[in-house]
């Protein structure tokens, strides 16, 4: 009996300038199984920022790619990450979101673990044979790999493969443009936005750096900023898309909105305008005029494959998202800011953030709506058909409103899912 080959998931035709993704990629359980194996279980995934785990004994319980993890700073100052499951029967060992402590106790049978994950106490310990005590059998299990890049912590669920700096590759240059903004480093500001919606996770990869949808989808956002005298400056949205390798990609562009680092708008008031000018002058001192200009007046929407978005726009947001089903995803979003920035700048930054971003912003809810409607559309033709991602294919210098950045993501995605064997 012959087996018919699986229909293609990607059509990449350089000659015609045609690039298409099969809609099955957004609807199929089999594709999701492949993604779990070839992507989420085999890539560096963002876990947390160092500022969220400042003091010895600090811990965070966080879910990454459907796995409950426990991120801990030990008494020795070392950061460690464990699967948040008791080696005895499996219950969550830590049920708080975050805190500071000296040990974790699973409430079911009261097994207790120190910050290094070692079993240190349990009722009836004498009833366990010597042979069960060796080799850390009853200790918390660490994630296979944990590493940081300048305060951004990542995990990897496989023990082997390229290290984090190699994995980030060409994306490091763009991360640096964000991470260098704070002279004393960067920090997460006040919590996580945790939301979700009914659309395949890859739609958010695309949307997060889709310069083509900005004006049509977000016309009501632009109506709002235009309503405020001096909230915009006369700068066009103009820039380019770059493939950074390994599936990472970025769009970098100028835009008319204010950036605390470091493009002011008159609406912020004279004091703030002066402060931003000083911030920019300091960037020039630290990095020279060319790099300072790039940090201050260009925006970046960066995707670290597969699912870390760093958007350095009117504020800086970090965002991760995970599929819970082909047609459903959960999103985590944070605000990242320079440590030690003035109270006024921090206030402006957060005000800016909420203007556009997040579940109550003037833009994000409409993005979620658009993506949910895309997902719904796939059902209307039974999951058949193609999404077109050809814009700017034949251009030598793909622009911010082209789709080269998405093609970079999709090529890496395709390379991985087609080599997976569920």
């Amino acid at each position, binding site marked *: 009996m012959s087996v018919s080959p699986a229909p293609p998931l990607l059509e990449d035709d350089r000659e015609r300038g045609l690039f298409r993704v099969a809609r099955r990629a957004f609807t199929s359980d089999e594709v999701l199984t492949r993604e779990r194996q070839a992507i989420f279980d085999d890539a560096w995934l963002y876990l947390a920022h160092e500022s969220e785990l400042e003091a010895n004994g600090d811990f965070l319980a966080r879910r990454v790619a459907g796995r409950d993890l426990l991120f801990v700073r030990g008494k020795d100052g070392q950061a460690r990450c464990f699967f948040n499951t008791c080696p005895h029967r499996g219950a969550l060992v830590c049920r708080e979101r975050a805190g500071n402590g000296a040990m974790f106790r699973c409430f079911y049978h009261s097994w207790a673990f120190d910050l290094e994950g070692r079993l240190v106490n349990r009722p009836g310990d004498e009833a366990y044979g010597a042979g069960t005590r060796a080799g850390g059998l009853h200790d918390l299990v660490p994630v296979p790999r944990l590493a940081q890049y300048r305060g951004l912590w990542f995990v990897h669920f496989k023990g082997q493969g390229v290290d984090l700096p190699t994995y980030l590759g060409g994306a490091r240059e763009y991360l640096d443009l964000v991470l260098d903004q704070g002279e004393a480093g960067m920090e997460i500001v006040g*919590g996580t936005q*945790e939301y979700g919606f009914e659309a395949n996770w890859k739609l958010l990869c695309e949307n997060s750096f889709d310069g083509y949808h900005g004006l049509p989808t977000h*016309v009501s956002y632009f*109506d709002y900023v235009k309503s405020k005298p001096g909230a915009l400056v006369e700068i066009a949205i103009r820039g380019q898309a770059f493939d950074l390798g390994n599936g990472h990609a970025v769009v970098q562009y100028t835009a008319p909105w204010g950036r605390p680092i470091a493009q002011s708008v008159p609406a912020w008031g004279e004091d703030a305008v002066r402060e931003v000018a000083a911030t920019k002058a300091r960037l020039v001192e630290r990095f020279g005029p060319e790099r300072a200009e790039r940090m201050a007046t260009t925006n970046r929407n960066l995707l670290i494959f597969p699912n870390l978005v760093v958007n350095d726009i009117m504020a800086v947001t970090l965002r991760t998202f995970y599929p819970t089903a082909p047609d459903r995803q*959960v999103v985590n979003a944070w605000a990242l800011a320079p440590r030690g920035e003035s109270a006024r700048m921090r206030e402006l930054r*957060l005000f800016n953030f*909420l*203007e556009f971003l997040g579940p*109550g912003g003037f833009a994000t809810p*409409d993005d979620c709506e658009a993506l949910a409607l895309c997902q719904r559309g796939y059902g209307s033709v039974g999951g058949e058909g193609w999404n077109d991602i050809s814009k700017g294919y034949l251009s030598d210098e793909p622009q911010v409103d082209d789709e080269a950045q998405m093609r970079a993501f999709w090529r890496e995605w395709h390379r991985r899912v087609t080599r997976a064997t569920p």
Partner: protein
Amino acid sequence: MNAASVGATRDELEDFLYAEAALLDAWRLDEWLALFVEGARYFIPPAGAEDDADPSTSLFYVADDYHRLCERVKRLKKRTAHAEFPRSRCRRLVSNVRVVEGDAARFTLTSNFVTWRSKLGVTDTFFGHHLYEMTRVDGALRILSKKTFLDQDDIRDQGKVSIIP
């Protein structure tokens, strides 16, 4: 502390909050906005936040000054507020109305709420409490600021706060 200690009656306070909810249910947003004094503010702190959460240090869902609140209302009435076009159907229940502190000129009022939002075959629930700073203008109750605290652990199910809960 009760309604009488701020020169009001429970009926008056409840009627005000019921009328507010009815305006939102009916999408009569301009009339809803008119319940606020000029310069009023509107907040939705992050899910699970404490009453003293501060939008200048933590990441809210909504932290509107008066201009942005007016623009939020304007936006919600447009076809281009895509998440609310066609607009969702909502129903609000308000209860547990209490005066927390203050005097007749300015006082803090709280209520519990449940709001259901239905659109495209999906019904979402928001629940929590509101915290109002209230005053009187020419004898009539007016809102100086309103904070809507969501008791959900997160908003994974609702996905967005595109309405005014």
